[in-house]
């Protein structure tokens, strides 16, 4: 037992290291939230204003502490914390050949920009391949985040066709369809019947009629733009966003010039503001107020100067967001997009998207795994509860079946879990729900090592060996078998790590490390404690 003191020292040292590396996790998820709760409670019942201020600053400090701890604590997966996991794919179909290669980089830049503005804690934005981007956002309003990320955000300023031009085109189309129908008066072919009058000059189409209407428009493209007409005089029908009008859901119809006067690239800034105009329907709603850069301001001034009385449409991703009448020449390069919403969220999100610039190509969701916060919490509870119940049952079993040695084995397995979590924390690995299952499985499979040893010891005792010899033989014979027995499981776990998706990687990591560490705890730790106990106490018969 020469090395007894060194061994003891080493083991205690390792235990302290493990506890130290896990302390931040304990603070972040346990002690700090408790302090926060009690502080908040005190805040509610605070006496003086000074007290309130003091408490608030303490709470702010705790927030900052949490941010610092996040770097050193165990990282919880999205399936436990709640949040969004997206793999976005870039639609390269409409791109020019040269642009294809760095489109994912540019898209990633822009998406990162938008997410930064949205203000999410610890987002992950990563380029996966030439056309795929990974986005992971913990604890976020998923609908808003998705719309911010996914919006192409192509902004265009285009002139709306004059009233008489619009009326003429509509009539021509109607004539065409009437000719086509040749006397058949069903609604199908009565083009003008789809239009709903809004106010004096505008029209809209009912949501339900849109598919048919749009198909009809496609049919008459050459009527809208006769081939003889030059490019710069061509027009296009576009719609406004869905809105409520007299109890129906409609979209307004606009005839726009195809020429783009200004684009989003020319915008210097986009700010959220209260509507301060004359339209009574829009009081108390929020708008995005745009400011163009210097070049564009000049262009804008000349366009507005030349087209007083006409309407200038602001088109976002093919939808006409607003089409105000140009009352006068606008030298300030300012314009606004109304949202018609008393909730500032839409305006904020729009501003974010305009500020970050438009995506080089549309992106769509190729894969999504999102968990709401309710379910996330539920998953944590279930995960911890089931792992704990399982662990306790196994521990009790070992205790009953192997008595004193069962107790030693139980300690070994607890240290096994402790060390595994410590390594996870120091590697900044992510603990997922399957990861918890992996830890539970480590417990179930890990005790096997001790079972192997103890059964061997029992056998040696039955064959009449002395207590000391039985123990030595038991441990010695078993080591090789234990390594063997766990290696195949470790091999398959390693394969799972390389080929598995996120949560399964978590399982593979906890199982692999759990079993590797088990080699140490089940053999050396257990033997060490067993030897220690034997030197202290004399046993007539071994409590195993």
């Amino acid at each position, binding site marked *: 037992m020469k090395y007894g003191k060194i061994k003891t020292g080493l083991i205690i040292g390792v235990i302290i290291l493990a506890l130290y590396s896990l302390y931040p996790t304990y603070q972040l998820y346990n002690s700090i939230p408790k302090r926060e709760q009690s502080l908040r409670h005190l805040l509610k019942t605070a006496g003086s204003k000074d007290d309130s201020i003091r408490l608030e600053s303490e709470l702010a400090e705790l927030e900052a502490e949490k941010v610092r701890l996040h770097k050193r604590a165990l990282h919880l997966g999205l399936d436990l914390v709640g949040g969004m996991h997206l793999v976005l794919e870039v639609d390269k179909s409409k791109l020019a050949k040269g642009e294809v290669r760095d489109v994912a980089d540019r898209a990633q830049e822009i998406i990162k920009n938008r997410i930064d503005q949205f203000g999410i804690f610890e987002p992950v934005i990563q380029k996966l391949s030439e056309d795929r981007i990974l986005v992971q956002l913990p604890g976020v309003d998923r*609908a808003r985040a998705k719309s911010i990320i996914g919006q192409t955000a192509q902004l265009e300023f285009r002139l709306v066709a004059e009233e008489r031009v619009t009326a003429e085109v509509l009539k021509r189309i109607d004539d065409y369809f009437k000719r086509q129908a040749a006397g058949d008066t069903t609604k199908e072919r009565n083009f003008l019947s789809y239009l709903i009058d809004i106010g004096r000059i505008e029209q809209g189409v009912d949501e339900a009629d849109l598919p048919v209407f749009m198909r009809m428009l496609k049919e008459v493209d050459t009527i809208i733009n006769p081939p003889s007409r030059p490019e710069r005089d061509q027009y296009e029908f576009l719609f406004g966003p869905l809105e409520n009008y007299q109890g129906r859901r409609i979209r307004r119809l606009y005839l726009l010039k195809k020429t783009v006067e200004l684009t989003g690239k020319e915008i210097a800034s986009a700010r959220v503001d209260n509507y301060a105009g004359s339209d009574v329907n829009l009081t108390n709603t929020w708008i995005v107020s745009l400011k163009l850069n210097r070049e564009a301001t000049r262009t804008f001034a000349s366009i507005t100067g030349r087209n007083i009385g006409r309407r200038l449409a602001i088109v976002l991703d093919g939808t006409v967001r607003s089409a105000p009448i140009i009352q006068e020449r606008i030298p300030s390069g300012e314009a606004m997009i109304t949202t018609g919403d008393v909730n500032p969220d839409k305006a904020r999100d729009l501003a974010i998207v305009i500020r970050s610039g438009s995506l080089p190509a549309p992106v769509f969701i190729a*894969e999504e795994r999102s968990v709401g916060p309710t379910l996330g919490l539920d998953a944590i509870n279930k995960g911890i509860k089931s792992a704990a119940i399982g662990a306790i*049952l196994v521990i009790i079993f070992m205790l009953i079946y192997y008595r004193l040695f069962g107790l030693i084995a139980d300690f070994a397995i607890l240290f096994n879990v402790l060390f595994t979590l410590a390594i996870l924390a120091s590697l900044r690995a992510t603990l997922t729900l399957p990861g918890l299952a992996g830890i539970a499985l480590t417990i179930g499979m890990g005790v096997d090592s001790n*079972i192997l040893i103890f059964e061997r010891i029992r*056998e040696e005792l039955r064959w009449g060996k002395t207590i000391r010899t039985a123990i030595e033989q038991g441990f010695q014979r078993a080591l090789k078998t234990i390594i063997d*027995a766990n290696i*195949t499981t*470790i091999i398959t776990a390693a394969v799972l790590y390389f080929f598995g998706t996120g949560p399964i990687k978590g399982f593979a990591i906890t199982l692999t490390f759990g079993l590797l560490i088990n080699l140490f705890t089940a053999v050396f730790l257990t033997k060490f404690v067993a030897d220690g106990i034997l030197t202290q106490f004399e046993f007539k018969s071994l409590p195993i």
Partner: protein
Amino acid sequence: MIRLIKDTNIDFIGKRKYAYILSAIIIFAGIISLIIKRGLNYGIDFTGGTIIHISFPSKIETEDLRGVIEGMGVRGATVQKYLEGYEFIVKIGPSDYPKGTSFSADLLEILKNKFPNNLPEILKEETVGPRIGKELQRNTLIALIIGLFGILVYVSFRFDFRFGTSAVISLLHDTLTTITYISLFNITVNIPVVAALLTIIGYSVNDSIVVSDRVRENIKKFRKENFLTLLNRSINEVLSRTTLTSITALIITVILAIFGAADIRDFARVMSFGIITGTYSSIYVVCAIVYDWQQRFPNR
């Protein structure tokens, strides 16, 4: 000391005929089940599609929800009741809704308009696009092949030829019986289930190693002994350890299967069955095959 398995002397090898029959029945049942059900119940990880777990504060009829979804133009949706009237699981196929639009966002929008006093929350949402679905299929297959290959390499090092081959056969046996279990109980095959299968493949070899080690030890010790007696002795000697190991692992997987959250439950169910079949095959299949092999082609 407590001993669950006292000095037993069960004639495993003598009764091996029954084991062969049992295994054959199970595997056969699996094949029939696969044929009748046309393959396995693959989850969206492999087929692609969208699954939404949606929860309402007040009761809503399944038919109403279904009606709304059909109104969105989606034909092949399945709406399952999770919590009668309050929680539902909606599943749509990969091409049921146009790419680039969000089915869940649109669904929420429409539900908000139709039932303004019953605003639902989407608890969980998973979408797998067709391209990624295919990639996951491919990667899973590769993972299984490499996993098996890794095990085979290890087995060829560790065992002698006959035991090695028998271990591999028992491994295949376990894979087939587990697939039978998955097919019979209609377990949705998603990535966690495949992970369970892979883990079982690794775990199944463990017990085989312990048995074969003991056989080799006994061959050295009892040179004169009849092979059948020797095999039986070896199995009976390790029986205690083998059953106990399965019990502790089974405790964990059964608890997980009962109390765990959705994905973990399926994983744990497959693992539980895999542990049982893995133990059974290590006790029986390995030695039975080695014995019959020895009978047909004696060498030692």
